[in-house]
């Protein structure tokens, strides 16, 4: 038993951090909000050059065949730097889906593209598949990250007892992709509608989707999103400590007042708990698939509570400056609020835990 990262895993954390400090600075986040790009092409390029886009892709298809722990470390850094890229959808979920369900030809067509950074993907319907009369399907989803800016969409459809992933370009005639403007401008979201369509007429991944893989994908999405939120919460606590140390009132730093100091200490306790929950969930997905659903639900439920709370309190700690757009605190609050609802509705993961009380023991 050793609940600590290996040297290789520490190197990945460090190298991802260096990449973000070059290509995902907070000024980049503000520029992105003011621009038109669907996601930061420069950062995506950097992730491809360091090999991070291929973290979960087999070596035979140009990847490095690492695990969820490693991908989660990258996501933690991407969350903390408020980056705009579709890493979780493309390099984690789509990589897993295509590897598991694609034919040889489909794997050859798409996996090397994901590994090299040449292909981006959004995954829809992980919780609510498209459904309809026999042989057809339709559905609506929002918010969807980067739906208008990726190369392909993988949409989960349910046809009677069978489930599939169909493959569509964002400009497909079957789809209506509307921009969804939210308070979080660090990423682009969309509301997506799949109009009633005949499944047989649309390209799909070769193998049908089994319930076990659905659970696994939901766990990967939850743990991955929780890792991003851990990055957000870590950064928020650092900023609160720095500001409370530097800001003077009544002739001393406000961090010396226990109203502030104890609030921050409680944040540190919550953050350490979040770290344990997230890192354990990532490891459980790699090594104990049967326990992944509960581990990931704990990570995401904890992240929803902790990242949001820390970001909310950070505004208060920053006082009047916290309410301005000049100080960055609000960017993290907005990010955390969207992270809470991006991959599942609010409280979804708390409800999973309430359903599986015995498995928490």
């Amino acid at each position, binding site marked *: 038993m050793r609940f600590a990262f290996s040297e290789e895993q520490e190197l990945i954390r460090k190298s991802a951090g260096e990449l973000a400090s070059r290509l995902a600075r907070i000024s980049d986040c503000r520029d992105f909000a003011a621009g038109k790009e669907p996601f930061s092409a420069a950062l995506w390029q950097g992730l491809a050059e360091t090999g991070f886009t291929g973290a979960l892709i087999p070596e035979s298809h140009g990847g490095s065949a690492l695990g969820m722990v490693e991908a989660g470390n990258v996501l933690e850094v991407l969350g903390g730097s408020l980056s705009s890229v579709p890493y979780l959808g493309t390099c984690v979920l789509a990589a897993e889906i295509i590897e598991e369900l694609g034919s040889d030809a489909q794997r050859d067509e798409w996996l090397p593209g994901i590994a090299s950074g040449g292909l981006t993907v959004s995954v829809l319907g992980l919780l609510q598949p498209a459904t309809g009369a026999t042989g057809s399907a339709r559905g609506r989803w929002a918010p969807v990250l980067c739906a208008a800016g990726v190369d392909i969409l993988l949409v989960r459809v349910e046809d009677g007892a069978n489930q599939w992933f169909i493959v569509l370009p964002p400009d497909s005639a079957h789809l209506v992709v509307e921009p969804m403007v939210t308070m979080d401008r660090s990423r682009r979201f969309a509301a997506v509608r799949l109009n009633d369509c005949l499944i047989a007429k649309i390209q799909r991944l070769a193998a049908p989707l089994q319930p076990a893989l659905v659970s696994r994908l939901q766990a990967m999405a939850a743990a991955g999103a929780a890792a991003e939120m851990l990055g957000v919460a870590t950064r928020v606590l650092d900023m609160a400590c720095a500001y409370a140390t530097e800001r003077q009132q009544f002739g001393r730093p406000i961090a010396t007042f226990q109203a502030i100091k104890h609030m921050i200490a409680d944040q540190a306790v919550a953050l350490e708990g979040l770290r344990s929950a997230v890192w354990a969930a990532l490891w459980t997905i790699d090594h104990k698939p049967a326990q992944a659903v509960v581990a990931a639900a*704990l990570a995401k439920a904890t992240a929803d509570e902790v990242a949001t709370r820390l970001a909310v309190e950070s505004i208060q700690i920053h006082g009047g400056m916290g309410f301005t757009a000049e100080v960055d605190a609000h960017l993290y609050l907005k990010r955390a609020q969207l992270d809470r609802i991006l991959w599942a509705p609010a409280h979804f993961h708390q409800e999973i835990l309430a359903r599986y009380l015995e498995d928490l023991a």
Partner: protein
Amino acid sequence: MDLDDSPQEAGFRRNVRAWLRDHLTEERRLQLNAREGRAWIDFIRHWQRDLLAAGLSVRSWPRAYGGQGAPATEDLIVFEELAQADAPLDAFRVGIRIIGPMLMKLARDDQKAAFLPRIADGSDLWSQGFSEPGAGSDLAALSTRAVHRAGKYVINGQKTWNTLGHLADFCLVLARTNPEVPKHKGLTAFAVPMSSPGITVRPLQQMNGRRDFNEIFFDDVELPENAVVGIVDGGWKVAVTMLDFEHRGLAVLGFGCRRLYGRLLELARTTRIGSSNRAALGELDIRRRLAALGGQARIAVLNNHRFLAMIPEGGVPGPEAAIQKLHSTELNKAMHALALEIASLADLADSEARERLSAWEEDYLTSFGMTIAGGTSQIQRNIIAERALGLPR
């Protein structure tokens, strides 16, 4: 990263479980609950000896002091399994988890040889003489004096909140040897035999009805110079080292929280609400609150494993121990509050329901001590902010 036991660890864990199954019999538990005072301590002493003989106590201590020189992970496995088995209250924890580890870092070799093996096998029960009526959270403000006179130290003063001092063989006393310097710099630690002339112990009645702690009065208690632990006027380092180990020791309560969560589920499953046939476990509100606490209990266990990996083998726990202490003691309190609430949902006209409520009442009241003992939750927050996060004092 590996959250699983290695094959060796798994084998060791199986052995611990098997031993506990064979030795922690129902009969032994009943006897334990029926005893008080010296008879209770003697009973625990036997239990401690059995644990040591089976290699299940102080495993990470050096062999010379009664241990096995095993990695700290094995101690953690023992703590986990003892908690899961509801093993008897660990009366010797002050010696084993706080004073023993401190002695290994700071005491002279002759003190280590004299004290450690007798702590390990339960021969000597140790207590801690830190707090005073005028020095609780502000420990360094203590006023018990130790005056050096004719080759001896003479101690005068009063200690309080002293756990099990009325049964103890030794007390680790912090006293002021130099009143002329800033308050942290004039303290010295002493190993004081409780049989020394001039010591009076007065038990205090606690809010949970028990009498575990005491006031101790020192009237011209004479000690030889070699009773000093560490260096003269270096007592603050002894105190801080002990407190770090104490937070660590209390953090093991995280394992207790997991066990408590299991008991909470059982309580909710078997409690019918009022005179209805509805189990408390079926109520959505109760399920949500159980989920929140169960999640935190699992996190407390994960924290224990993760923070262990952060301490170098044989090292002193850092300020992260305060994070564990604060988290697990507050969680323990919240879990007992929910237990009390669930137990009181039952039809209390039923005598069994009343007995059950009464048992939870005692545990509920006991849970309040943990967020005060060994540094209040408020002091833990100061430690976390100042030592872990580096915020200004």
